[in-house]
């Protein structure tokens, strides 16, 4: 009972999972998780549980979205050396190891996404969208004569092939990456 009550007064755990996905594993992520927890506790006392949860959710999504955008434009949130007074923006040794030895953050995140258990569903969605768009293109092009129809047909078939290829790659390679990751863990 007490345990259930305590868990109600904590920020939702899935938001931490979202941040763990979006942020590199270093002291900055640790500090952000702590800041969010502290602000949640502060809001809880000030505005009540419901609004505190809403604020927490809004902060988490804002941080995750911004971190992913920054990472996509090669401005990943990687900690610099705290003693880097010389001010060259020196990346800390631990972060440096990941930055030099590992692929870019976006690529790593994409691989992680592809390796996720729910990704086959996403792949299926891509195929369905491909088929629907293909059908729409065929039906829209038909009244405009044979040339337009054949151009749309080639485009549609190419789109369908691309969708199926993406889905096949994802379905074949995704589980392999997942297995590899599990083995490493």
């Amino acid at each position: 009972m007490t345990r259930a009550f305590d868990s109600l007064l904590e920020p939702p755990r899935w938001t931490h999972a979202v941040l763990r996905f979006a942020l590199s594993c270093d002291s900055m992520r640790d500090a952000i998780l702590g800041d969010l927890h502290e602000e949640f506790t502060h809001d809880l006392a000030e505005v009540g549980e419901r609004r505190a949860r809403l604020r927490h959710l809004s902060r988490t999504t804002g941080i995750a979205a911004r971190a992913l955008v920054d990472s996509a434009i090669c401005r990943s949130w990687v900690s610099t050396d705290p003693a880097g007074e010389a001010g060259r923006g020196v990346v800390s040794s631990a972060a440096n190891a990941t930055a030099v030895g590992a692929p870019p953050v976006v690529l790593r995140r994409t691989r992680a996404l592809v390796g996720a258990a729910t990704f086959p569903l996403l792949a299926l969605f891509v195929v369905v969208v491909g088929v629907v768009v293909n059908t729409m293109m065929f039906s829209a092009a038909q009244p405009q004569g044979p040339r337009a129809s054949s151009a749309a047909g080639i485009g549609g078939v190419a789109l369908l092939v691309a969708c199926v290829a993406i889905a096949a790659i994802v379905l074949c390679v995704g589980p392999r990456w997942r297995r590899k990751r599990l083995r490493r863990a």
Partner: protein
Amino acid sequence: MGRKSVLGEFEQTVMLAILQLGDDAYAPNIARHLDATIDRSVSRGALYSCLNQLERKGLLRWRLDAPTPERAGHARRFYQVSARGVRAVRIVRDSQLMLWRGLEGILGAAK
């Protein structure tokens, strides 16, 4: 670093808030300070992104506090403006003051 400003408007605001907060400058406090002093509500994503950029430019230094139970065992990250950061803020202030000079007749005296 030349005379050219290396700080954007939001970066200037954050740097000034950190300078004002002194030893107590960590992200939630910076946000609260900006909200209280200039009535500017800051999105956490923008704030952390800005702190990261300033850190990478070498304008900020940071240190970690001991983890506490109120923060679920996570350490607090305090920021401090580096010597290079102070120089950058000074350059921005000087160039801004040049532009503000002689406008009292139009804008009135500052509060």
